[in-house]
């Protein structure tokens, strides 16, 4: 689904990723870990095309990102659901509108009962009309997850999705992502929560990637 070929990225004065080659294949389940500031968020931004590699290539769904037109890039992003670390809600819209936004911008119909079911599933029943500023950190993160999956994307990228959630909610979120993975979705979760990774490994065949010194390595049993 997403392939990196010798891709590098760095901000001026600091190289974060140096010549990374990696494939996220269909229906795979990955964790991405590494200390804070290692470049996890940056890696995800490369995957959904917010950042472009300084060198090397990145292709998504078989198409080279550098060759995509602006509209093709928009089309690609509709196939990738992202749970952003800081949620990226629109402050003037209600929670329900924010969650439905991927469908709104895609011009797709929104079935009210489906939206209500989804919000209930992430534990946000009754919060439909709340503005993002009125939500707690945990509520925002659950809303961000709902927005990431509402458009039935092929790939789900989650950036520290459990950072503001209690253990029970983290488990619910994990089992939802596992469920989606069983349905054939490609899942990548960036996290430094090792307990989450250990629990997940009992439910799904997950590969754990670690960013270290600009390289993305497959982590062994030394979690």
């Amino acid at each position, binding site marked *: 689904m997403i392939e990196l070929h010798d891709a590098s990225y760095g901000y001026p004065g600091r190289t974060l990723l140096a010549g990374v080659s990696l494939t996220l294949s269909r229906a795979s389940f990955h964790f991405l870990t590494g200390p804070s500031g290692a470049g996890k968020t940056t890696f995800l931004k490369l995957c959904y095309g917010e950042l472009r590699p300084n060198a090397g290539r990145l292709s998504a769904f078989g198409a080279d990102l550098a060759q995509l037109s*602006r509209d093709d890039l*928009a089309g690609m*992003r509709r196939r990738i659901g992202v749970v952003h670390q800081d949620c990226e809600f629109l402050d003037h819209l209600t929670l*329900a509108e924010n969650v439905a936004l991927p469908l709104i*911008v895609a011009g797709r119909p929104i079935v009210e009962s489906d939206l209500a079911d989804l919000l209930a599933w992430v534990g946000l029943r009754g919060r439909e009309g709340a503005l993002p500023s009125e939500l707690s950190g945990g509520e925002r993160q659950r809303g961000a997850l709902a927005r990431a999956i509402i458009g039935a994307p092929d790939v789900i990228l989650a950036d520290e999705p459990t950072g503001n959630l209690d253990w029970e909610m983290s488990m619910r979120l994990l089992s939802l992502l596992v469920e989606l993975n069983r349905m054939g979705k490609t899942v990548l979760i960036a996290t430094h929560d090792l307990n989450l990774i250990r629990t997940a490994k009992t439910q799904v065949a997950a590969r754990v990637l670690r960013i270290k010194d600009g390289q993305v390595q497959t982590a062994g049993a030394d979690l």
Partner: protein
Amino acid sequence: MKPISTRSAAPATFAPGIDRIVPAAGASATLTLLAAAAMAFLAVFTLALAFSANRLADSWSGDLAATATVRISAAPDQADLQTRRVLEVLTTTPGVVSSREIPAEETRALLAPWFGPDLPVETLPIPRLVAITTEPQAFDAEGLRLRLSAEAPGAVLDDHSRWRAPLADTAVALRRIAVFSLALIGGATAAMVTLAVQASLAANGQVIRVLRLIGARDVTIARAFVRRYTLRATLGALAGTTVAAAAVAALPVVADGEFLTHLGFSGREWLWALSVPAIAAITALVATRAAALRRLRDEA
């Protein structure tokens, strides 16, 4: 008895308008509304001016063309004879509908405003005047001049073209200026909404970034802005047009419409005034769409 399934209709859908995705703009939207109202007001008045100029041009080159004067300057003993000859010639001139000698008292009355009532007219060589009504299409002024010079050497035909032409030219120029002004108003409206949309796009950079992240295409983002501003411009133009139309309708009507005409619309011309909001809407739509798409394409 239980009713059979009533769920035949499509499931209820949640449908916030596409323009909701952009926050309600503050000052620039209000300014767009006010400026569009002002522009529409100006456009309606300029249209009224254009139509009035049009009518003036028509009447100065049309109605006035149907009159002419023959002036006979001759020695007192010749004057009667030449006047008679002129009247004879006129009865056989094609295109002359009627002719009439203007009596001396009437001529004096015509001169009084310029020379005062105490003018010793008897001592002045006042020319005899013959007024003619013509059928402009059939009337040949040059032919008549030739015949008059042969029959009555003291007679001079004045078909008013000498002073009519500059008036008609002025009216035509006025009309041209009005049309040019309308083009300027349209251009200024387009520039104004373009600036407003650009300001709004610049102020909503963060919103646009998020919309892009979730896969919104440029046209979708542009549409949200375009709808907002086109709606504002149209509402403003409607208000401006209404006020201007009421003001024009309230202008006094000049009853004697031969030399002057009232400023305003008559009959079908009102439709043009009513088209101002529609033209403003189209102008705003085209200008904002172009501005929004250009800006979205240029950034990032």
